[in-house]
């Protein structure tokens, strides 16, 4: 659609981000900025208690993986082997970033950070509340050095507010905000919650949106800002209609499993298929789709039951309907059933496990979702991609480095030498002093 004069480029060309974040929620935001071309410099330190937990959390690359190898050499369960550079999840979370080591407990370390901040667009952190102020590196201090700096801090509940000193991780924020409660089968079953830390991911997406809005304003008006991003507040934003409905009805929110209480859709759920823990999601939106389903499964007597002829009837007898539909699906191969139903225009999809999504999913393959990227110690591995195609400033999870995650301190020379302008002798001295 473009006139073709330019070859396109990077949306965040020339943007430098000092990234003090760790674990998941902060690195998620900076991952997206690197994807659009920002120069993200991850600041870490070598002491065990300061090392990002996910640098030493499994899964690890297989023990035989080297810089020249990678997944093509085969997969076996690996170990850390005394290295902080072999963790697969860290590699998937931090592609496209530069990595430096810097001791912020050392006054010279803090001075170097201030030098980095002077020429940066953004600084990100997710320390416990108050840590940066203790170091004299809080927003008010840093904006004196660089008035256009954008400072973003991500915490479980937010830095402002009554609970500002509370400790919280993604799962805590999920429980607190109501997202854990909302997920699962109706009471008396307990909540099923989330099988991972959803609120270590979504706030990262929101963080990226806000940072890109702030970067645009910074480009236009040279102003900075402070962003106190809260994981539990993000949870409230994602609690759907529950809070508003409650204000109108006064009734407590209840769980509804995989069913659809907001539309006359039924059957609507996950149904067991042949094999070990195999399931298919089926979502019938109309009587027409219901009749198409009956025809496809050979019009068994139970399906022609008059109780099931209308959406209202199906809803009313949903337990019975689910049991009868399950008695049919249990004998079916899951992908074959999905294809048969989809061929008749019925929304149906296999409950895909990680192995299905990686080895089989033809859509992800066709769209090039997994991107092979090299890592300097464990070789080339597939990294999860960005879910949209942009025609002029394409997403590129390898970012400006063209690599997966950095090794600990991999880019000290580039950052301290080339960007900060230290000589080799100065860097050697700082390294001896335990600063870099």
């Amino acid at each position, binding site marked *: 659609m*473009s006139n073709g004069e330019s070859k396109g480029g990077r949306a965040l060309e020339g943007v430098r981000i000092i990234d003090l974040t760790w674990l998941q929620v902060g690195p998620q935001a900076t991952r997206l900025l690197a994807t*659009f071309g920002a120069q993200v410099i991850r600041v870490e330190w070598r002491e065990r208690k300061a090392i990002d937990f996910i640098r030493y959390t499994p899964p690890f690359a297989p023990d035989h993986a080297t810089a020249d190898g990678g*997944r093509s050499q085969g997969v*076996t*369960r690996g170990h850390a082997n005394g290295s902080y550079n072999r963790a*697969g*999840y860290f590699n*998937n979370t931090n592609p496209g970033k530069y990595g430096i080591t810097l001791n912020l407990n050392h006054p010279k370390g803090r001075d170097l950070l201030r030098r980095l901040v002077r020429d940066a667009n953004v600084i990100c952190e997710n320390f416990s509340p108050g840590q940066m102020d203790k170091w004299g590196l809080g927003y008010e201090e840093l904006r004196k050095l660089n008035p256009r700096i954008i400072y973003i801090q991500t915490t479980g*509940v*937010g830095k402002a*507010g009554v609970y500002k000193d509370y400790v919280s*991780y993604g799962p805590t*924020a999920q429980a607190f905000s109501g*997202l854990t*409660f*909302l997920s699962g089968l109706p009471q008396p*079953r307990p*909540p099923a*919650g*989330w099988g991972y830390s959803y609120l270590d991911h979504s706030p990262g997406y*929101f963080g990226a949106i806000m940072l*890109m*809005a702030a970067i*645009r304003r910074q480009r*236009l008006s040279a102003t900075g800002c402070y962003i106190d991003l809260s994981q539990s*507040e*993000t949870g409230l*934003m994602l609690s*759907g*209609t*529950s*809070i*508003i409905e*409650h204000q*109108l009805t006064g009734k407590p929110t209840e769980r509804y*499993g*995989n069913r*659809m209480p907001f*539309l006359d859709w039924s059957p609507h*759920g*996950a149904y067991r298929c042949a094999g070990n823990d195999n399931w298919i*999601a089926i979502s019938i939106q109309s009587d027409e789709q219901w009749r198409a389903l009956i025809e496809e499964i050979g019009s068994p007597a139970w399906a022609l039951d008059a109780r099931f002829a209308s959406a209202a009837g199906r809803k009313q007898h949903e337990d019975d309907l689910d049991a009868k539909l399950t008695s049919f699906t249990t004998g079916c191969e899951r992908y074959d059933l999905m294809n048969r139903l989809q061929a008749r*225009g019925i929304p149906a*999809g*296999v*409950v*895909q*496990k*990680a192995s299905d*999504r990686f080895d089989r999913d*033809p*859509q992800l393959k*066709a*769209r090039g979702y997994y991107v092979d990227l090299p890592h300097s110690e464990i070789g080339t591995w597939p990294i*999860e991609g960005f879910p*949209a195609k*942009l*025609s*002029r400033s394409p*997403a590129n999870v390898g970012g400006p480095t063209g690599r997966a995650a950095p090794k600990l301190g991999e880019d000290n020379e580039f950052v301290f030498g080339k960007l900060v302008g230290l000589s080799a002798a100065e860097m050697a001295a700082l390294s001896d002093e335990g600063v870099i």
Partner: protein
Amino acid sequence: MLLAGLGAEVIKLEPREGSPSRGIGPFASTAPDKEQSIFFWRYNLNKKSAVLDVDDPDAQPTLAALASKADIVLLSGEFETVERRLPLWCKLAEENPRLIVCTITPFGLDGPYRALKATDLVQMALGGIMAVCGYDPDKDGAYDTPPIAPAMWHSYHLGGEYAAVAMMAAINFRELSGEGQFIDVSVHEAVNTCTEVAIPSYVYAGQVVMRQTARHAAPSVTHARLTVSADGVFMLASLSPFEREQRAVAELADQVGIGHVLGTPEFAQLEKEDRVAAAIYRQDLLEEIIASLPADEIFKRAQAVGLAWSPIRRPEDNLDDPHFAARGSFATIRHPELGRDLRYPSTVASDGHAPHFSYTRRAPRLGEHTDEVLKRAAIR
């Protein structure tokens, strides 16, 4: 709605019968009514609504006028609908090279699944979130409960968030180059990005993670269980082998008068010799402490000793929480037709004084701004 909250003017073009999202419940009325959909209200704050049939050839000059002054055109829905409408917008983008055209479809505009039918449930299934959410298997590792799609439309949340990320990237690119562009968002891929260790566990170690009740899916079943407070509220609480946490729990146990061996040489020995037995001991102690007090009391006391425990609240329990009140997490929105205000969760961040997102207007009634929008289009 995210861009509207950051200050963009968002005009929703709707067919005469209204956007399909006006038909999604719950409804404020007893029967479904396109002006009473709480779902529509929730996701369309601050926007304007104009009735304009984008499929009607007579509407084309108006659409052209709107596109000539717009920054972004966003199309979403089923593949067939988006594919049919897209050429018109691409043509208009040639006349306004700064225009950004963004589509959100279930699977993206190309690939073998592009025309498959999907709902939120189907997207959560194919995208991989369902397989990692649900309940514990039995002791033999077999599941008698289905995988669960967490409620409240998260596949569309994810698709919308990534669309906003991509649109903000395109806006930034336009500041550098003066060029608009075309964006193709796939909800399927958006859901796929959000399953944490599931893909790395398989890619690096060949392990498929197992879903477990209200905790992380993992290659094997972990020991923690949900606990219940004295007043019957489920609590999210865990006790890891980290020394700091053990000390904090010991302090809590002492406070409520429950005897324990944490911190003794005997327990250190047990941890060394039988990690599973030590984990079970910790879990039993945790359950005993939590059963001894009401949820809010445990929450306060646990936080006071630095433990990241929380009651599993209903979303609405936060409406009167002083923390969110202090942050301005809820916007009070006037609904003149109801004769009352409703409070909407309306931000994810504060600038230290006020929320970064600002919502002041309820979702528009169908065609509420048609005259205003048509007049502006006529002026060109």
